[in-house]
Protein backbone atom coordinates (compact mmCIF):
# COMPACT_ATOMS: atom_id res chain seq x y z
CA UNK A 1 0.00 0.00 0.00
CA UNK A 2 2.81 2.39 0.92
CA UNK A 3 4.36 1.68 -2.45
CA UNK A 4 1.09 2.39 -4.23
CA UNK A 5 0.72 5.73 -2.42
CA UNK A 6 4.25 6.68 -3.44
CA UNK A 7 3.57 5.78 -7.04
CA UNK A 8 0.37 7.80 -7.04
CA UNK A 9 2.11 10.86 -5.63
CA UNK A 10 4.95 10.65 -8.12
CA UNK A 11 2.33 10.17 -10.85
CA UNK A 12 0.57 13.29 -9.60
CA UNK A 13 3.85 15.19 -9.80
CA UNK A 14 4.29 14.35 -13.50
CA UNK A 15 0.56 14.87 -13.85
CA UNK A 16 0.86 18.41 -12.53
CA UNK A 17 3.41 19.13 -15.25
CA UNK A 18 1.18 17.60 -17.92
CA UNK A 19 -1.76 19.56 -16.53
CA UNK A 20 0.08 22.89 -16.84
CA UNK A 21 1.02 22.25 -20.42
CA UNK A 22 -2.40 20.80 -21.26
CA UNK A 23 -4.02 23.91 -19.82
CA UNK A 24 -1.77 26.00 -22.06
CA UNK A 25 -2.97 23.99 -25.06
CA UNK A 26 -6.59 24.45 -24.01
CA UNK A 27 -6.15 28.23 -23.56
CA UNK A 28 -4.94 28.61 -27.12
CA UNK A 29 -7.42 26.10 -28.51
CA UNK A 30 -10.37 27.93 -26.96
CA UNK A 31 -9.22 31.27 -28.31
CA UNK A 32 -8.23 30.21 -31.83
CA UNK A 33 -9.45 26.66 -32.44
CA UNK A 34 -5.92 25.48 -33.12
CA UNK A 35 -3.78 22.92 -31.32
CA UNK A 36 -0.47 24.67 -30.74
CA UNK A 37 2.24 22.14 -31.55
CA UNK A 38 4.93 24.64 -30.57
CA UNK A 39 3.71 24.72 -26.95
CA UNK A 40 6.27 22.16 -25.83
CA UNK A 41 9.20 23.85 -27.57
CA UNK A 42 8.13 27.23 -26.18
CA UNK A 43 8.33 25.66 -22.73
CA UNK A 44 11.69 24.09 -23.53
CA UNK A 45 13.04 27.43 -24.72
CA UNK A 46 11.96 29.23 -21.56
CA UNK A 47 13.52 26.45 -19.49
CA UNK A 48 16.85 27.18 -21.18
CA UNK A 49 16.30 30.89 -20.47
CA UNK A 50 15.71 30.00 -16.83
CA UNK A 51 18.91 27.93 -16.83
CA UNK A 52 20.89 30.93 -18.12
CA UNK A 53 19.32 33.27 -15.56
CA UNK A 54 20.00 30.86 -12.72
CA UNK A 55 23.69 30.93 -13.57
CA UNK A 56 23.64 34.55 -12.39
CA UNK A 57 20.84 35.07 -9.88
CA UNK A 58 19.06 33.10 -7.18
CA UNK A 59 16.34 30.56 -7.95
CA UNK A 60 13.08 32.32 -7.18
CA UNK A 61 13.96 35.71 -8.73
CA UNK A 62 15.12 33.83 -11.82
CA UNK A 63 11.88 31.83 -11.77
CA UNK A 64 9.78 35.00 -11.67
CA UNK A 65 11.86 36.74 -14.31
CA UNK A 66 11.51 33.69 -16.59
CA UNK A 67 7.74 33.85 -16.26
CA UNK A 68 7.77 37.52 -17.27
CA UNK A 69 10.02 36.81 -20.24
CA UNK A 70 7.85 33.84 -21.22
CA UNK A 71 4.78 36.03 -21.17
CA UNK A 72 6.40 38.65 -23.39
CA UNK A 73 7.83 35.99 -25.71
CA UNK A 74 4.51 34.17 -26.07
CA UNK A 75 2.62 37.38 -26.83
CA UNK A 76 5.29 38.42 -29.34
CA UNK A 77 5.04 35.08 -31.13
CA UNK A 78 1.31 35.57 -31.49
CA UNK A 79 1.75 39.10 -32.81
CA UNK A 80 4.52 38.32 -35.29
CA UNK A 81 3.91 34.77 -36.49
CA UNK A 82 0.33 33.73 -35.76
CA UNK A 83 -1.52 36.99 -36.37
CA UNK A 84 -0.60 37.15 -40.09
CA UNK A 85 -2.06 33.67 -40.74
CA UNK A 86 -5.09 34.15 -38.53
CA UNK A 87 -7.60 34.10 -41.38
CA UNK A 88 -6.01 31.08 -43.09
CA UNK A 89 -7.58 27.60 -42.83
CA UNK A 90 -7.06 26.05 -39.36
CA UNK A 91 -4.73 23.35 -40.64
CA UNK A 92 -2.47 26.03 -42.14
CA UNK A 93 -2.17 27.64 -38.70
CA UNK A 94 -1.35 24.21 -37.25
CA UNK A 95 1.42 23.84 -39.84
CA UNK A 96 2.77 27.25 -38.80
CA UNK A 97 2.93 26.05 -35.19
CA UNK A 98 4.78 22.95 -36.42
CA UNK A 99 7.17 25.34 -38.16
CA UNK A 100 7.59 27.18 -34.86
CA UNK A 101 8.27 23.87 -33.12
CA UNK A 102 11.10 23.08 -35.53
CA UNK A 103 12.44 26.65 -35.47
CA UNK A 104 12.46 27.06 -31.69
CA UNK A 105 14.19 23.72 -31.32
CA UNK A 106 16.84 24.81 -33.84
CA UNK A 107 17.25 28.21 -32.21
CA UNK A 108 17.78 26.60 -28.81
CA UNK A 109 20.43 24.31 -30.32
CA UNK A 110 22.10 27.30 -31.94
CA UNK A 111 22.18 29.30 -28.71
CA UNK A 112 22.83 26.68 -26.05
CA UNK A 113 24.65 23.97 -28.01
CA UNK A 114 24.21 20.24 -27.76
CA UNK A 115 25.64 19.57 -24.31
CA UNK A 116 23.03 18.60 -21.70
CA UNK A 117 22.30 21.11 -18.94
CA UNK A 118 21.29 20.68 -15.33
CA UNK A 119 18.61 22.86 -13.80
CA UNK A 120 18.74 23.30 -10.05
CA UNK A 121 15.72 22.24 -8.10
CA UNK A 122 14.06 24.52 -5.55
CA UNK A 123 13.06 21.45 -3.56
CA UNK A 124 15.23 18.94 -1.78
CA UNK A 125 15.05 15.38 -2.96
CA UNK A 126 14.89 14.13 0.64
CA UNK A 127 11.88 12.09 1.59
CA UNK A 128 9.30 13.30 4.05
CA UNK A 129 7.24 10.86 6.09
CA UNK A 130 3.49 11.28 6.15
CA UNK A 131 1.51 8.57 7.91
CA UNK A 132 4.35 6.11 7.66
CA UNK A 133 4.81 6.55 3.91
CA UNK A 134 7.87 8.32 2.53
CA UNK A 135 7.12 10.91 -0.15
CA UNK A 136 9.72 12.91 -2.01
CA UNK A 137 9.65 16.60 -1.16
CA UNK A 138 10.42 17.35 -4.77
CA UNK A 139 7.30 15.52 -5.96
CA UNK A 140 5.13 17.34 -3.44
CA UNK A 141 6.74 20.66 -4.40
CA UNK A 142 6.06 20.10 -8.09
CA UNK A 143 2.43 19.25 -7.37
CA UNK A 144 2.17 22.36 -5.20
CA UNK A 145 3.70 24.74 -7.74
CA UNK A 146 1.71 23.39 -10.70
CA UNK A 147 -1.57 23.49 -8.83
CA UNK A 148 -0.77 26.97 -7.45
CA UNK A 149 -0.21 28.38 -10.93
CA UNK A 150 -3.38 26.72 -12.17
CA UNK A 151 -5.33 28.17 -9.22
CA UNK A 152 -3.87 31.63 -9.83
CA UNK A 153 -4.88 31.46 -13.43
CA UNK A 154 -8.37 30.30 -12.51
CA UNK A 155 -8.72 33.24 -10.12
CA UNK A 156 -7.50 35.58 -12.84
CA UNK A 157 -10.09 34.32 -15.30
CA UNK A 158 -12.84 34.21 -12.73
CA UNK A 159 -12.39 37.44 -10.77
CA UNK A 160 -10.74 40.06 -12.97
CA UNK A 161 -12.22 42.15 -15.70
CA UNK A 162 -9.35 41.25 -18.01
CA UNK A 163 -10.03 37.56 -17.39
CA UNK A 164 -13.67 38.08 -18.25
CA UNK A 165 -12.60 39.86 -21.45
CA UNK A 166 -10.36 36.92 -22.35
CA UNK A 167 -13.17 34.46 -21.83
CA UNK A 168 -15.58 36.59 -23.83
CA UNK A 169 -13.12 36.96 -26.69
CA UNK A 170 -12.70 33.20 -26.81
CA UNK A 171 -16.43 32.44 -26.80
CA UNK A 172 -17.68 35.11 -29.17
CA UNK A 173 -15.08 37.36 -30.79
CA UNK A 174 -17.50 39.36 -32.93
CA UNK A 175 -19.83 40.37 -30.12
CA UNK A 176 -16.94 40.95 -27.72
CA UNK A 177 -15.60 43.52 -30.13
CA UNK A 178 -18.98 45.23 -30.10
CA UNK A 179 -18.89 45.67 -26.32
CA UNK A 180 -15.41 47.18 -26.47
CA UNK A 181 -13.09 44.25 -25.81
CA UNK A 182 -9.88 44.42 -27.82
CA UNK A 183 -10.07 40.88 -29.17
CA UNK A 184 -6.72 41.07 -30.94
CA UNK A 185 -4.96 42.02 -27.69
CA UNK A 186 -6.80 39.24 -25.87
CA UNK A 187 -5.36 36.68 -28.29
CA UNK A 188 -1.82 37.93 -27.68
CA UNK A 189 -2.52 37.89 -23.95
CA UNK A 190 -3.76 34.31 -24.23
CA UNK A 191 -0.56 33.24 -25.95
CA UNK A 192 1.44 35.02 -23.25
CA UNK A 193 -0.40 33.20 -20.48
CA UNK A 194 -0.02 29.88 -22.29
CA UNK A 195 3.73 30.51 -22.53
CA UNK A 196 3.83 31.23 -18.78
CA UNK A 197 2.12 27.91 -18.04
CA UNK A 198 4.59 26.18 -20.33
CA UNK A 199 7.51 27.86 -18.57
CA UNK A 200 6.29 26.54 -15.24
CA UNK A 201 5.90 23.06 -16.73
CA UNK A 202 9.42 23.18 -18.17
CA UNK A 203 11.07 24.43 -14.99
CA UNK A 204 9.29 21.75 -12.98
CA UNK A 205 10.02 18.97 -15.47
CA UNK A 206 13.77 19.56 -15.91
CA UNK A 207 15.26 19.15 -12.40
CA UNK A 208 14.02 15.60 -11.63
CA UNK A 209 15.53 14.36 -14.89
CA UNK A 210 19.05 15.25 -13.72
CA UNK A 211 20.03 16.72 -17.07
CA UNK A 212 18.02 18.03 -19.97
CA UNK A 213 18.51 19.03 -23.59
CA UNK A 214 16.43 20.50 -26.40
CA UNK A 215 14.20 17.41 -26.54
CA UNK A 216 13.06 17.98 -22.97
CA UNK A 217 9.42 18.75 -23.69
CA UNK A 218 8.63 16.50 -26.65
CA UNK A 219 7.38 13.50 -24.69
CA UNK A 220 5.69 15.84 -22.23
CA UNK A 221 3.83 17.56 -25.05
CA UNK A 222 2.47 14.17 -26.15
CA UNK A 223 1.14 13.47 -22.65
CA UNK A 224 -0.21 17.01 -22.38
CA UNK A 225 -1.98 16.69 -25.72
CA UNK A 226 -3.44 13.38 -24.59
CA UNK A 227 -4.46 14.93 -21.27
CA UNK A 228 -6.12 17.92 -22.91
CA UNK A 229 -8.11 15.70 -25.24
CA UNK A 230 -9.01 13.28 -22.46
CA UNK A 231 -10.37 16.14 -20.39
CA UNK A 232 -12.07 17.78 -23.35
CA UNK A 233 -10.03 20.09 -25.53
CA UNK A 234 -12.19 23.13 -24.70
CA UNK A 235 -12.35 22.56 -20.96
CA UNK A 236 -9.70 24.08 -18.63
CA UNK A 237 -10.94 21.96 -15.72
CA UNK A 238 -10.74 18.95 -18.02
CA UNK A 239 -7.12 19.74 -18.87
CA UNK A 240 -6.11 19.77 -15.20
CA UNK A 241 -8.03 16.62 -14.31
CA UNK A 242 -6.85 14.97 -17.52
CA UNK A 243 -3.23 15.88 -16.79
CA UNK A 244 -3.34 14.44 -13.29
CA UNK A 245 -5.16 11.30 -14.50
CA UNK A 246 -2.68 10.72 -17.31
CA UNK A 247 0.26 11.23 -14.93
CA UNK A 248 -1.04 8.72 -12.40
CA UNK A 249 -2.24 6.26 -15.03
CA UNK A 250 1.04 6.21 -16.93
CA UNK A 251 3.00 5.75 -13.73
CA UNK A 252 0.81 2.95 -12.39
CA UNK A 253 0.59 1.09 -15.70
CA UNK A 254 4.36 1.39 -16.22
CA UNK A 255 5.08 0.13 -12.71
CA UNK A 256 2.55 -2.60 -12.13
CA UNK A 257 1.76 -4.12 -15.52
CA UNK A 258 4.72 -6.35 -16.30
CA UNK A 259 4.92 -6.39 -20.09
CA UNK A 260 4.31 -2.65 -20.43
CA UNK A 261 7.55 -1.33 -18.96
CA UNK A 262 9.02 1.92 -20.22
CA UNK A 263 8.59 1.18 -23.95
CA UNK A 264 4.86 0.68 -24.10
CA UNK A 265 3.81 3.25 -21.47
CA UNK A 266 2.79 5.86 -23.97
CA UNK A 267 0.95 3.49 -26.36
CA UNK A 268 -0.97 1.95 -23.46
CA UNK A 269 -1.89 5.37 -22.10
CA UNK A 270 -3.07 6.42 -25.56
CA UNK A 271 -5.06 3.21 -25.97
CA UNK A 272 -6.85 3.85 -22.68
CA UNK A 273 -7.61 7.42 -23.70
CA UNK A 274 -8.88 6.22 -27.06
CA UNK A 275 -11.19 3.87 -25.20
CA UNK A 276 -12.51 6.76 -23.13
CA UNK A 277 -13.01 8.88 -26.24
CA UNK A 278 -15.06 6.17 -27.91
CA UNK A 279 -17.49 6.34 -25.01
CA UNK A 280 -17.27 10.11 -24.62
CA UNK A 281 -16.24 11.60 -27.99
CA UNK A 282 -15.81 15.09 -26.50
CA UNK A 283 -13.61 14.07 -23.60
CA UNK A 284 -14.56 13.92 -19.94
CA UNK A 285 -15.53 17.57 -19.50
CA UNK A 286 -15.72 18.78 -23.08
CA UNK A 287 -18.84 20.33 -24.51
CA UNK A 288 -20.54 18.20 -27.11
CA UNK A 289 -20.11 19.77 -30.49
CA UNK A 290 -23.40 21.27 -31.56
CA UNK A 291 -23.38 22.47 -35.12
CA UNK A 292 -25.73 24.77 -36.91
CA UNK A 293 -27.31 23.36 -40.05
Amino acid at each position, binding site marked *: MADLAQQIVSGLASGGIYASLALALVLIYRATGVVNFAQGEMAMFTTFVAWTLMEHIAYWPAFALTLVLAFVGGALLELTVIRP*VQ*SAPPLTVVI*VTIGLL*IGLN*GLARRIWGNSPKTLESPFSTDPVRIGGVAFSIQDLGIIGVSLAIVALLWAFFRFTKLGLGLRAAAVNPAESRLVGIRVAWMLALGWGLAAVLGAVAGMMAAPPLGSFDQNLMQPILLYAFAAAVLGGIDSPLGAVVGGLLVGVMVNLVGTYVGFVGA*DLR*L*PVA*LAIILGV*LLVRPSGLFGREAVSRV
Partner: protein
Amino acid sequence: MIRVALFALAVGVVALLPRVLSDFRASQAALVAIYFVALIGLNVLTGYTGQVSLGHGAFMALGGYATAILVSDQRLELFGHTFSSDLRDIWTLPIAGLVAGLAGLVFGIPALRLTGAYLALATFGIGVALPAVLKKAEVLTGGSTGINLFGQPKLTGLGIETTVLGRHLTYNDWLYYACWTVALIGLVVAWLLLRGRLGRAFRAVRDSPTAATSSGVNLSVAKTAAFGISAAYAGVAGGLYAMQTTFVNPGVFDVTLSIFLVVGVVVGGLGTMWTQVFGAAFIVFLPDVAQAISKQPGVPAIVYSVVLIALMLVLPTGVGGLARRAFAPLTSRLYHQS
Protein backbone atom coordinates in the same frame (compact mmCIF):
# COMPACT_ATOMS: atom_id res chain seq x y z
CA MET B 1 -8.72 16.94 -73.18
CA ILE B 2 -6.21 19.43 -71.81
CA ARG B 3 -5.97 17.26 -68.75
CA VAL B 4 -5.10 14.18 -70.79
CA ALA B 5 -2.55 16.13 -72.84
CA LEU B 6 -0.88 17.53 -69.74
CA PHE B 7 -0.83 14.09 -68.20
CA ALA B 8 0.79 12.64 -71.34
CA LEU B 9 3.37 15.42 -71.16
CA ALA B 10 4.08 14.56 -67.53
CA VAL B 11 4.50 10.88 -68.46
CA GLY B 12 6.96 11.87 -71.17
CA VAL B 13 9.02 14.03 -68.85
CA VAL B 14 9.04 11.33 -66.20
CA ALA B 15 10.13 8.70 -68.75
CA LEU B 16 13.05 10.72 -70.06
CA LEU B 17 14.28 12.38 -66.89
CA PRO B 18 16.67 9.60 -65.71
CA ARG B 19 18.86 10.25 -68.77
CA VAL B 20 19.88 13.57 -67.28
CA LEU B 21 19.70 12.73 -63.58
CA SER B 22 22.64 11.42 -61.59
CA ASP B 23 22.15 8.16 -59.74
CA PHE B 24 21.71 9.99 -56.43
CA ARG B 25 19.20 12.44 -57.88
CA ALA B 26 17.26 9.54 -59.39
CA SER B 27 16.95 7.96 -55.98
CA GLN B 28 15.76 11.29 -54.55
CA ALA B 29 13.26 11.64 -57.38
CA ALA B 30 11.99 8.16 -56.55
CA LEU B 31 11.48 9.35 -53.00
CA VAL B 32 9.45 12.31 -54.28
CA ALA B 33 7.18 9.84 -56.10
CA ILE B 34 6.80 7.79 -52.92
CA TYR B 35 5.72 10.81 -50.87
CA PHE B 36 3.50 11.83 -53.78
CA VAL B 37 1.61 8.54 -53.44
CA ALA B 38 1.29 8.96 -49.68
CA LEU B 39 0.12 12.57 -50.04
CA ILE B 40 -2.50 11.66 -52.64
CA GLY B 41 -3.83 9.24 -50.05
CA LEU B 42 -3.74 11.74 -47.22
CA ASN B 43 -5.41 14.30 -49.48
CA VAL B 44 -8.35 11.93 -50.07
CA LEU B 45 -8.89 11.88 -46.31
CA THR B 46 -7.93 15.39 -45.19
CA GLY B 47 -8.37 17.45 -48.34
CA TYR B 48 -11.51 15.88 -49.74
CA THR B 49 -13.27 14.44 -46.71
CA GLY B 50 -12.03 16.95 -44.14
CA GLN B 51 -10.72 14.44 -41.60
CA VAL B 52 -7.30 15.20 -40.14
CA SER B 53 -4.87 12.33 -39.72
CA LEU B 54 -1.70 12.86 -37.73
CA GLY B 55 -0.86 9.18 -37.95
CA HIS B 56 -0.53 8.32 -41.60
CA GLY B 57 3.06 7.24 -41.02
CA ALA B 58 1.56 4.22 -39.25
CA PHE B 59 -0.24 3.09 -42.41
CA MET B 60 2.99 3.59 -44.35
CA ALA B 61 4.68 1.43 -41.73
CA LEU B 62 2.15 -1.37 -42.27
CA GLY B 63 2.74 -1.31 -46.02
CA GLY B 64 6.50 -1.09 -45.60
CA TYR B 65 6.59 -4.04 -43.24
CA ALA B 66 4.25 -6.05 -45.47
CA THR B 67 6.63 -5.60 -48.39
CA ALA B 68 9.74 -6.20 -46.30
CA ILE B 69 8.35 -9.36 -44.71
CA LEU B 70 7.23 -10.80 -48.04
CA VAL B 71 10.42 -9.94 -49.91
CA SER B 72 12.78 -11.14 -47.21
CA ASP B 73 10.63 -14.28 -46.89
CA GLN B 74 10.32 -14.41 -43.11
CA ARG B 75 9.18 -17.98 -42.73
CA LEU B 76 6.25 -17.84 -40.41
CA GLU B 77 5.13 -20.94 -38.59
CA LEU B 78 1.46 -20.73 -37.75
CA PHE B 79 -0.95 -23.54 -36.86
CA GLY B 80 1.54 -26.13 -38.05
CA HIS B 81 1.92 -24.58 -41.50
CA THR B 82 4.96 -22.75 -42.74
CA PHE B 83 4.00 -19.68 -44.69
CA SER B 84 6.58 -18.49 -47.13
CA SER B 85 6.56 -16.10 -50.03
CA ASP B 86 8.29 -16.08 -53.39
CA LEU B 87 6.92 -12.74 -54.57
CA ARG B 88 9.11 -10.22 -56.34
CA ASP B 89 9.23 -6.80 -54.71
CA ILE B 90 6.74 -4.99 -56.96
CA TRP B 91 4.13 -7.76 -56.65
CA THR B 92 4.12 -7.21 -52.89
CA LEU B 93 2.83 -3.66 -53.37
CA PRO B 94 -0.83 -4.60 -53.88
CA ILE B 95 -0.62 -6.64 -50.71
CA ALA B 96 1.02 -3.70 -48.90
CA GLY B 97 -1.86 -1.52 -50.03
CA LEU B 98 -4.42 -4.12 -49.05
CA VAL B 99 -2.99 -4.65 -45.56
CA ALA B 100 -2.83 -0.92 -44.84
CA GLY B 101 -6.21 -0.31 -46.47
CA LEU B 102 -7.88 -2.94 -44.32
CA ALA B 103 -6.22 -1.46 -41.25
CA GLY B 104 -7.54 1.93 -42.36
CA LEU B 105 -11.07 0.56 -42.68
CA VAL B 106 -10.85 -1.07 -39.27
CA PHE B 107 -9.51 2.12 -37.70
CA GLY B 108 -12.00 4.23 -39.62
CA ILE B 109 -14.98 2.64 -37.90
CA PRO B 110 -14.21 3.76 -34.32
CA ALA B 111 -12.87 7.03 -35.73
CA LEU B 112 -16.39 7.79 -36.97
CA ARG B 113 -17.28 8.99 -33.51
CA LEU B 114 -14.45 11.50 -33.40
CA THR B 115 -13.94 14.84 -35.11
CA GLY B 116 -11.46 17.71 -35.07
CA ALA B 117 -8.86 17.68 -32.31
CA TYR B 118 -10.19 14.38 -30.93
CA LEU B 119 -9.68 12.61 -34.26
CA ALA B 120 -6.28 14.29 -34.54
CA LEU B 121 -5.26 12.81 -31.18
CA ALA B 122 -6.65 9.37 -32.03
CA THR B 123 -4.69 9.21 -35.28
CA PHE B 124 -1.66 10.73 -33.59
CA GLY B 125 -1.94 7.97 -31.01
CA ILE B 126 -1.78 5.34 -33.76
CA GLY B 127 1.27 7.10 -35.22
CA VAL B 128 3.02 7.11 -31.86
CA ALA B 129 1.98 3.65 -30.76
CA LEU B 130 2.62 1.55 -33.87
CA PRO B 131 6.44 1.87 -33.88
CA ALA B 132 6.51 0.72 -30.26
CA VAL B 133 4.27 -2.22 -31.12
CA LEU B 134 6.44 -3.12 -34.12
CA LYS B 135 9.45 -3.11 -31.82
CA LYS B 136 7.72 -5.64 -29.55
CA ALA B 137 6.45 -7.97 -32.30
CA GLU B 138 9.92 -9.37 -32.92
CA VAL B 139 8.92 -12.65 -34.56
CA LEU B 140 7.69 -10.92 -37.69
CA THR B 141 9.34 -7.54 -37.62
CA GLY B 142 12.85 -8.17 -36.36
CA GLY B 143 12.29 -5.91 -33.34
CA SER B 144 14.20 -2.65 -33.20
CA THR B 145 16.80 -3.71 -35.80
CA GLY B 146 14.04 -4.25 -38.32
CA ILE B 147 14.43 -6.13 -41.60
CA ASN B 148 17.30 -5.63 -44.03
CA LEU B 149 16.46 -6.16 -47.69
CA PHE B 150 19.78 -5.21 -49.21
CA GLY B 151 21.14 -8.03 -51.33
CA GLN B 152 17.79 -9.81 -51.53
CA PRO B 153 17.68 -11.61 -54.90
CA LYS B 154 14.01 -10.73 -55.26
CA LEU B 155 14.65 -7.01 -55.51
CA THR B 156 14.12 -6.16 -59.15
CA GLY B 157 17.03 -4.15 -60.50
CA LEU B 158 19.46 -5.65 -58.00
CA GLY B 159 18.86 -9.38 -58.38
CA ILE B 160 16.96 -9.21 -61.68
CA GLU B 161 18.29 -7.25 -64.68
CA THR B 162 15.98 -4.64 -66.13
CA THR B 163 15.96 -2.48 -69.25
CA VAL B 164 13.63 0.41 -70.06
CA LEU B 165 13.61 2.24 -73.43
CA GLY B 166 16.76 0.39 -74.45
CA ARG B 167 18.72 1.42 -71.36
CA HIS B 168 20.04 -1.03 -68.85
CA LEU B 169 18.94 0.31 -65.48
CA THR B 170 20.89 0.83 -62.30
CA TYR B 171 18.97 0.04 -59.12
CA ASN B 172 18.12 3.69 -58.52
CA ASP B 173 16.95 4.21 -62.09
CA TRP B 174 14.75 1.13 -61.87
CA LEU B 175 13.42 2.37 -58.54
CA TYR B 176 12.71 5.72 -60.12
CA TYR B 177 10.62 4.13 -62.86
CA ALA B 178 8.82 1.81 -60.45
CA CYS B 179 7.92 4.62 -58.05
CA TRP B 180 6.84 7.08 -60.71
CA THR B 181 4.78 4.48 -62.54
CA VAL B 182 2.95 3.69 -59.32
CA ALA B 183 2.56 7.40 -58.54
CA LEU B 184 1.08 8.23 -61.94
CA ILE B 185 -1.25 5.23 -61.82
CA GLY B 186 -2.21 6.33 -58.32
CA LEU B 187 -2.96 9.82 -59.55
CA VAL B 188 -5.20 8.53 -62.35
CA VAL B 189 -7.01 6.16 -60.00
CA ALA B 190 -7.58 9.01 -57.55
CA TRP B 191 -8.97 11.17 -60.35
CA LEU B 192 -11.30 8.42 -61.49
CA LEU B 193 -12.46 7.69 -57.95
CA LEU B 194 -13.06 11.29 -56.98
CA ARG B 195 -14.60 12.74 -60.12
CA GLY B 196 -17.89 10.92 -59.67
CA ARG B 197 -20.35 10.01 -57.00
CA LEU B 198 -17.79 9.03 -54.36
CA GLY B 199 -15.79 12.26 -54.72
CA ARG B 200 -18.95 14.34 -54.46
CA ALA B 201 -19.96 12.43 -51.35
CA PHE B 202 -16.52 13.03 -49.81
CA ARG B 203 -16.63 16.76 -50.49
CA ALA B 204 -20.16 17.00 -49.15
CA VAL B 205 -19.05 15.31 -45.94
CA ARG B 206 -16.23 17.84 -45.63
CA ASP B 207 -18.29 20.94 -46.35
CA SER B 208 -21.43 20.06 -44.42
CA PRO B 209 -22.07 16.66 -42.85
CA THR B 210 -25.68 17.62 -42.21
CA ALA B 211 -26.36 18.66 -45.78
CA ALA B 212 -24.58 15.53 -47.00
CA THR B 213 -26.79 13.30 -44.86
CA SER B 214 -29.97 15.00 -46.01
CA SER B 215 -28.88 14.52 -49.63
CA GLY B 216 -28.66 10.80 -49.06
CA VAL B 217 -24.93 10.40 -48.43
CA ASN B 218 -24.23 7.73 -45.85
CA LEU B 219 -21.76 9.54 -43.58
CA SER B 220 -20.36 6.40 -41.98
CA VAL B 221 -19.76 4.68 -45.28
CA ALA B 222 -18.20 7.77 -46.87
CA LYS B 223 -15.87 8.48 -43.96
CA THR B 224 -14.81 4.86 -43.53
CA ALA B 225 -14.24 4.49 -47.27
CA ALA B 226 -12.08 7.62 -47.24
CA PHE B 227 -10.02 6.15 -44.41
CA GLY B 228 -9.60 2.87 -46.25
CA ILE B 229 -8.62 4.40 -49.59
CA SER B 230 -6.30 6.85 -47.92
CA ALA B 231 -4.59 4.16 -45.88
CA ALA B 232 -4.22 1.91 -48.93
CA TYR B 233 -2.31 4.67 -50.73
CA ALA B 234 -0.13 5.14 -47.66
CA GLY B 235 0.48 1.38 -47.58
CA VAL B 236 1.64 1.28 -51.20
CA ALA B 237 3.88 4.27 -50.47
CA GLY B 238 5.26 2.40 -47.47
CA GLY B 239 6.01 -0.64 -49.61
CA LEU B 240 7.88 1.50 -52.13
CA TYR B 241 9.67 3.19 -49.26
CA ALA B 242 10.92 -0.18 -48.04
CA MET B 243 12.22 -0.89 -51.55
CA GLN B 244 13.86 2.52 -51.76
CA THR B 245 15.70 2.37 -48.43
CA THR B 246 16.15 -1.44 -48.68
CA PHE B 247 15.46 -1.77 -44.98
CA VAL B 248 12.67 -1.13 -42.52
CA ASN B 249 12.80 -0.55 -38.79
CA PRO B 250 10.42 1.13 -36.33
CA GLY B 251 12.46 4.36 -36.40
CA VAL B 252 11.88 4.84 -40.13
CA PHE B 253 8.14 5.19 -39.64
CA ASP B 254 8.05 7.21 -36.42
CA VAL B 255 5.60 9.99 -35.70
CA THR B 256 7.83 12.63 -37.32
CA LEU B 257 7.02 11.00 -40.64
CA SER B 258 3.31 11.47 -39.96
CA ILE B 259 3.86 15.12 -39.12
CA PHE B 260 5.89 15.68 -42.29
CA LEU B 261 3.09 14.10 -44.32
CA VAL B 262 0.61 16.61 -42.91
CA VAL B 263 3.03 19.44 -43.65
CA GLY B 264 3.43 18.07 -47.17
CA VAL B 265 -0.29 17.80 -47.85
CA VAL B 266 -0.93 21.37 -46.70
CA VAL B 267 2.00 22.69 -48.73
CA GLY B 268 0.71 20.72 -51.72
CA GLY B 269 -2.73 22.19 -51.21
CA LEU B 270 -5.69 20.44 -49.61
CA GLY B 271 -8.24 19.35 -52.17
CA THR B 272 -5.99 19.43 -55.23
CA MET B 273 -4.33 16.19 -56.29
CA TRP B 274 -1.61 16.87 -58.83
CA THR B 275 -0.05 19.74 -56.84
CA GLN B 276 0.73 17.22 -54.10
CA VAL B 277 3.89 16.55 -56.10
CA PHE B 278 5.11 19.92 -54.80
CA GLY B 279 4.30 18.89 -51.26
CA ALA B 280 6.31 15.71 -51.85
CA ALA B 281 9.23 17.65 -53.30
CA PHE B 282 9.05 19.98 -50.30
CA ILE B 283 9.37 17.03 -47.90
CA VAL B 284 12.32 15.55 -49.80
CA PHE B 285 14.33 18.60 -50.78
CA LEU B 286 13.84 21.29 -48.11
CA PRO B 287 15.95 19.45 -45.48
CA ASP B 288 18.74 19.17 -48.08
CA VAL B 289 18.53 22.84 -48.99
CA ALA B 290 18.57 23.79 -45.31
CA GLN B 291 21.63 21.58 -44.74
CA ALA B 292 23.37 23.12 -47.72
CA ILE B 293 22.99 26.64 -46.33
CA SER B 294 24.74 25.89 -43.07
CA LYS B 295 25.63 22.81 -41.07
CA GLN B 296 26.06 24.59 -37.74
CA PRO B 297 23.95 22.99 -34.99
CA GLY B 298 20.40 24.22 -35.12
CA VAL B 299 20.74 26.40 -38.20
CA PRO B 300 19.20 23.95 -40.72
CA ALA B 301 16.15 23.65 -38.46
CA ILE B 302 15.85 27.44 -38.28
CA VAL B 303 16.10 27.74 -42.07
CA TYR B 304 13.51 24.99 -42.47
CA SER B 305 11.10 26.68 -40.12
CA VAL B 306 11.52 30.13 -41.65
CA VAL B 307 10.88 28.75 -45.15
CA LEU B 308 7.86 26.76 -43.97
CA ILE B 309 6.28 29.67 -42.09
CA ALA B 310 6.99 32.12 -44.90
CA LEU B 311 5.44 29.70 -47.40
CA MET B 312 2.31 29.42 -45.27
CA LEU B 313 2.12 33.22 -45.10
CA VAL B 314 2.41 33.60 -48.85
CA LEU B 315 0.35 30.54 -49.84
CA PRO B 316 -2.05 29.78 -46.98
CA THR B 317 -3.89 27.28 -49.21
CA GLY B 318 -0.69 25.69 -50.51
CA VAL B 319 0.42 25.27 -54.09
CA GLY B 320 -3.00 23.80 -54.88
CA GLY B 321 -4.72 27.02 -53.89
CA LEU B 322 -2.36 28.98 -56.11
CA ALA B 323 -3.00 26.63 -59.04
CA ARG B 324 -6.76 26.80 -58.54
CA ARG B 325 -6.60 30.57 -58.66
CA ALA B 326 -4.24 30.66 -61.63
CA PHE B 327 -6.32 28.26 -63.74
CA ALA B 328 -9.72 29.60 -62.76
CA PRO B 329 -11.60 31.56 -65.44
CA LEU B 330 -10.63 35.22 -65.55
CA THR B 331 -14.07 36.37 -64.41
CA SER B 332 -13.99 34.39 -61.20
CA ARG B 333 -10.42 35.54 -60.64
CA LEU B 334 -11.57 39.14 -60.80
CA TYR B 335 -14.64 38.47 -58.75
CA HIS B 336 -12.93 36.39 -56.10
CA GLN B 337 -10.39 38.98 -54.96
CA SER B 338 -9.74 37.58 -51.52
